[in-house]
C-alpha cells in the first residue's frame, strides 16, 4: 500500500490528475460556504460575460455560472461516487460468487450478459425513464448499467485466482468458500476492482451529464453540468462562456479521473510491479 502511494507520486500524470480531482471535489463540497446562490435570478444581468462580480459570467436568467458549475459539480460528484460505489459493491459480490461457484456463474452471468447486450447509455435512459427522474433513480440506473462490467472484471480475476495453489492449499486446510473468497481471493483482486472504480466514476459523470442534457436527470432549476449545456445551446454564439464553462468542468473532471485510473493501473498492474520473482 505504501509502495503504491509512493509509486503514484513519482508519476507526473497521477499527481496532476489527483490534484485536479481534489480541487474539483473540494470546490464542490465547500460551494455553499462561498458561492453565490446558484438559483438567484437577476434579469438585469442576463448573459453577462465573465467579469469581477461574475467570474464565469451569467446565464439567460442572470444566474451566476460559477456557482451553478460548482453546485452542479456537487451533484455530479455525488452521483459519480455513489454509482461507482454501488456498482463496485454489486459487481464485486456477484463477480466473486460467479467466478468461484460454477452454478452461480451459469445463471447470474447469463443474466448479466443479457444486460450487457444493451448499450449502457440506452439502458440508463430506459431505467431512469421507468423509475422517474431523481438523484436516487439515476444512481440506481447507472449502477445497474455499470454492474455487468465490474462483475466481469472481478469474475475473471476470481477464476484466475481460484486456480492459485494457495487457494487450493486453503481448501486443503478446510477453509470454507466464503472465507476463501474474502481472505484469499478478494485482497489479491483489489487492484483491478479499484481501477475499474475510477473508470466507472468518470463514465458515470459523463453519463449523468448526458442524461440531464436530455432532460432525464435532476430536474431544473437545480443546476447540473448537463442541463446547463442543454440550456446554453441557444445562446452559443451570443454567450459562448455559458457553454464553455460547464463543458470544461465535464472535460476536466472526466479526463482527470481517466488519467488517474490509467496511472493507477500502470502502478498496480502485476506485470509492471512483480515479475522480478518466479
Amino acid at each position: 500500500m505504501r509502495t503504491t502511494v509512493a509509486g503514484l507520486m513519482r508519476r507526473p500524470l497521477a499527481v496532476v490528475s489527483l490534484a485536479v480531482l481534489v480541487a474539483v471535489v473540494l470546490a464542490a463540497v465547500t460551494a455553499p460556504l462561498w458561492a453565490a446562490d446558484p438559483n438567484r435570478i437577476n434579469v438585469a444581468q442576463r448573459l453577462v460575460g465573465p467579469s469581477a462580480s461574475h467570474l464565469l459570467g451569467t446565464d439567460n436568467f442572470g444566474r451566476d455560472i460559477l456557482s451553478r458549475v460548482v453546485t452542479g459539480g456537487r451533484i455530479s460528484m455525488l452521483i459519480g461516487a455513489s454509482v461507482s460505489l454501488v456498482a463496485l459493491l454489486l459487481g464485486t459480490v456477484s463477480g466473486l460468487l460467479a467466478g468461484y461457484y460454477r452454478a452461480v456463474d451459469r445463471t447470474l452471468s447469463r443474466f448479466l450478459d443479457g444486460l450487457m447486450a444493451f448499450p449502457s447509455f440506452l439502458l440508463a435512459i430506459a431505467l431512469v425513464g421507468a423509475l422517474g427522474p431523481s438523484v436516487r433513480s439515476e444512481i440506481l440506473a447507472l449502477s445497474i448499467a455499470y454492474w455487468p462490467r465490474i462483475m466481469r472484471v472481478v469474475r475473471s480475476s476470481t477464476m484466475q485466482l481460484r486456480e492459485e495453489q494457495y487457494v487450493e492449499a486453503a481448501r486443503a486446510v478446510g477453509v470454507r468458500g466464503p472465507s476463501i473468497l474474502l481472505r484469499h481471493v478478494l485482497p489479491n483482486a483489489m487492484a483491478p476492482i479499484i481501477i475499474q472504480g475510477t473508470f466507472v466514476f468518470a463514465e458515470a459523470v459523463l453519463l449523468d451529464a448526458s442524461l440531464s442534457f436530455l432532460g432525464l436527470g435532476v430536474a431544473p432549476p437545480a443546476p447540473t453540468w448537463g442541463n446547463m449545456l442543454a440550456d446554453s445551446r441557444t445562446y452559443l454564439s451570443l454567450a459562448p462562456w455559458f457553454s464553455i464553462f460547464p463543458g470544461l468542468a465535464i472535460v476536466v473532471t472526466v479526463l482527470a479521473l481517466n488519467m488517474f485510473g490509467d496511472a493507477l493501473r500502470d502502478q498496480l498492474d502485476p506485470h509492471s510491479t512483480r515479475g522480478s520473482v518466479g
Partner: protein
Amino acid sequence: MQIDQDSVAVQEGLKIIDKPETAQGEQPDHLLDVYGLRKYFPIRDGKLGRGTVNVRAVDDVSFSIFAGETLGLVGESGSGKSTLGRLLVRLMPETSGQVLFEGQDLMSLPERKMRDMRRQMQVVFQDPFGSLNPRFTIGEIVGEPLRVHRISRGKERAARVSELLELVGLDPSRKDRYPHEFSGGQRQRVGIARAIALNPKFIVADEAVSALDVSVQSQVINLLMDLQRELGLTYLFIAHGLDVVRHISDRVAVMYLGKLVEIAPAERIFTTPAHHYTSALLSALPVPDPHNNRERIVLQGEVPSPTNPPSGCRFRTRCVRAEELCSKEEPILHSIGENHEVACHFPLAQPATSEMR
C-alpha cells in the same frame, strides 16, 4: 497402528462402509485404501465444440497405503500422479471409485464432515512460490489451519505457530515476515509447517521438492523424514523421478498414463523392477561412475494421448516386449512376490528366486 489423539473427532458419527473385495481385515494397518478410482476430465471436441471426449487422468487405480509408511509415487508429466494425490484428499471430485481413510469413504462424506476430516490429511504443494498467499505473513499462513478449526486462539495460537516454525527449522521471530522475504526452501518449510499444524495422520507431498535445487531438496526430504519419525506421519510422496523417492520411500508405485503399472517395496523397485516402463525409468537415472557402461533403455516415441489411450496395455506402443496379447488384453495389477505387484503380461522380474536380468 499408531495411536492418535485426534481420532475421536474423526470417528464420531461416521458410518463404516462395506469395503469391496479383499480389503476386509486382510492387513489391519491400512490407513488408506483406494478402489477403482477414476478421474476423467471432459474436454470439448469435434466440430462446433459439440461432443466431448474424456482425458483419463486417473483410470481405475486401486492400492493401499499402510499407516506410518511413505509411499513414493512416480511417473512422468501427465501420468496422473498429481491428480491422484488431489483425489485422495478430495481436493477435486472423483469420476468414480472409492477412497477409504481408516475405513471411511471420503467420497461420500458430506462437505461438513469432510472439513473435519481434513484435520487428518494435509497436502504439501509443489510450488513454494505459489502455495503461500503473498498477502499473508508466514505466521498467519501457519496459523490458518488452527483458526479454521478453532483449535486455539490468542497467545496460545501464537505459541503453537512459533513451535511449528521451530519444528520445521525456521526462526519463529520471523513469523511477521511475508513469503517473498524467504527463499524457496524456507517457503517449502512454511508449507510443511502449515501441513503439520493440525497433527494430521496423512500428508500428500505433491512434488514437494521438485521445484527446489538439489542441495535444498535433500534438506527438505530429511526434514520430512524427521517429522515422520517424530509425529508418526504417513506420506504419499509424489515425484517425477525415481531418484528423489529412493531415499524417503518404503514402497514405490509407478504410474503411466493414468494407470498404476507397478507397486513394490522401494529396494525391489530399484533392484528387480518387473515392469518394462519401470526398468526404462531406472536406466535413465544417472550413475556417478564413468566406468559404468550399462545399457540404457531409450523409450521410443511419445506418451500417447490420455484421451485415446492404446488398447490393452497402455505401455505397449513403446514397450520392447510387446506382443499381440498386449493390444488385446489389458494387464491387471497382480502380485508377483511379497508386496510386489505389476500390471504386465510379461514382467521382467519373475516371482521368487529367478531373475531374468
